[in-house]
């Protein structure tokens, strides 16, 4: 277990994820914080039973409100800060745990691996970068896909993981999304896709761009089949992923605070030469600008998804003997 700057993915708790490209580094390092604290404590009274590493495993500092949180509590609260509702980034496997009925998730297309169609080299060859990313994140790709049940409702579920290669979409992500959509269409399952991505994967060049068309095209057939697709936007979703499947949901949900856009904030500021509003491209900004249907806290995400799925898939059953005016019971709602 490692210490984490809250800003990084929850993956970093377990796997020391690589620093995602394009993210700022202005937050205080937790280790540093502990070092300072320790120094102070040593100066006062020397009584420090835990090592820094042990401390880090037990405690996490909230990126937003700086509160020190007991890591176990944080995990039980789905990695949402109980003080300020800051939503820590979580990995794909953890999402599966948070969302699906225990043991119901069956991964598909786990056997797809990136190749190197361009022989791409910058400071390092792409294959080496791939190996490094896999080693560091413990993930072979930036998308985990499969089928599961949610409160007994079968679903097709795809979850992007920013921890692997900045969640970038190359041929494998595109192919896995397309196959998942096709699978959902064939089995007539509702489809849920969680986005988290820096955009298309440059190292696969034009083939990465083509994944936008491939996934959107698959959604056309899916849409025409009258099936439900819920897109969930999570911190951060940018570029080619936003400009394809992420924005094509019948219903689009965003997690609080998630930043979502096509062009990045810095690029826009450089282009228009003015500062952008502080809440620009946040989930809340998107909501007030008509781009998402709702912003849903992670702790209510599962029940909201179940409610939406049951609303759109279950046939109305006339309850025998009951009046038409009875308030219907909506499973999965807290109240």
């Amino acid at each position: 277990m490692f210490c984490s700057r809250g800003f990084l993915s929850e993956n970093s708790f377990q796997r020391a994820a690589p620093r995602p490209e394009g993210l700022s580094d202005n937050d205080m390092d937790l280790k540093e914080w502990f070092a300072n604290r320790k120094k102070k404590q040593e100066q006062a009274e020397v009584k420090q039973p835990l090592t820094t590493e042990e401390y880090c495993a037990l405690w996490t500092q909230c990126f937003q409100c700086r509160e020190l949180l007991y890591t176990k509590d944080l995990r039980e609260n789905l990695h949402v800060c109980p003080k300020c509702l800051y939503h820590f980034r979580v990995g794909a496997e953890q999402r599966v745990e948070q969302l699906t009925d225990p043991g119901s998730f069956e991964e598909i297309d786990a056997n797809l691996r990136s190749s190197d169609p361009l022989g791409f080299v910058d400071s390092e060859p792409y294959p080496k970068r791939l190996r490094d990313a896999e080693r560091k994140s413990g993930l072979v790709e930036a998308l985990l896909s499969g089928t599961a049940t949610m409160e007994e409702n079968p679903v097709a579920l795809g979850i992007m993981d920013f921890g692997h290669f900045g969640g970038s979409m190359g041929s494998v992500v595109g192919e896995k999304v397309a196959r998942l959509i096709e699978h959902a269409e064939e089995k007539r399952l509702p489809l849920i896709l969680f986005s988290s991505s820096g955009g298309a994967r440059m190292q696969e060049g034009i083939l990465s761009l083509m994944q936008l068309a491939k996934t959107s095209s698959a959604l056309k057939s899916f849409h025409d089949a009258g099936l439900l697709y819920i897109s969930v936007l999570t911190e951060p979703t940018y570029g080619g992923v936003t400009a394809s499947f992420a924005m094509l949901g019948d219903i689009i949900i965003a997690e609080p605070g998630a930043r979502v856009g096509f062009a990045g904030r810095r690029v826009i500021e450089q282009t228009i030469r003015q500062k952008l509003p502080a809440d620009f491209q946040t989930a809340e900004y998107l909501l007030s600008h008509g781009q998402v249907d709702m912003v849903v806290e992670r702790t209510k995400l599962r029940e909201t998804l179940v409610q939406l799925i049951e609303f759109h898939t279950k046939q109305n059953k006339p309850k025998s003997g009951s009046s038409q005016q009875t308030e219907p019971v909506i499973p999965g709602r807290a109240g």
Partner: protein
Amino acid sequence: MVDQKITPLEFEKPLALLAQQIELLEKQIGEGAHPELENDLDRLNQQYDQLKRSLYSNLRGIDHLALARHPQRPYTRDYLGRWDSAWIEMHGDRKGVDDPAMVTGLLRMGDHKVVVCGTQKGRTIHEKKNCNFGMPQPEGYRKALRLFQHAEKFQLPIINLIDTPGAYPGLAAEEHNQAEAIAVNLRELSGLTVPVISVITGEGGSGGALAIGVANRILMLEHSVYSVISPEGCASILWRSADKVAEACTAMKMTAREIKQLGVADEVVTEPLGGAHHDADFAAEKLREALVRHLNELTKMSPKELRKDRQNKFRRLGAFVES
């Protein structure tokens, strides 16, 4: 022989130098001063032709990029006017905006009546600003979508001309959800039952290009480029240096021939030696011939086949290993 009005690019400088020498010599001979120099002139002219041929048959990615961005390169309106001087322009998204960076209309090409959409860069400073340097707003993509739907209703083939640095990274563009505008076009284009042909005539920049690029056939002019991100963007992110644009161009494999090798482009259309801007009429005619040829083939297919063909084309694209 030497086209004086064309601005030479950096890599064309040796050629331009030679052209200057030839001009000087011609002037001297014309004045009757040194008739004995005629042999030298012949030699220089031969050298010029040789250099020109060798130069343009050994272009690097960044040279193609420079040609694709040449300020005198023919733009969408230059092609449309040459193909059908009576083409009918259609305007607007019907919802408040007519984006000049996206030109749309109705056009006759051979025996075919087609809907055309194309990004438009400006020629004059005023035009450039008006067209936002060829970067459409979300409303431009939605204007194109309206025309796509028009084409579908009347079962007219669609021709899209692409020459854009990409979608505009601006505040209003994000506010008006350009990601959605692009995504919806990708989805809706894939569902059309009419022939769609897209041509990269200059720059094919990322999602902003693809938004009118989901086609049954993708053609690229010889010196056009097509990339997932601008080479400048790629260089600054991966090399962390603006000086590495040439490296980024090479690494991304963005030239017409490379894009065809990757299975994305279906045909590379020859340009006049030195680039389309050396002879726009010739370039337009060559492209027209190619388009009519593809239209003749595609219009033989049924609506259902056309949709399936287009979806299959993009379904196949990508490279991965299945273990």
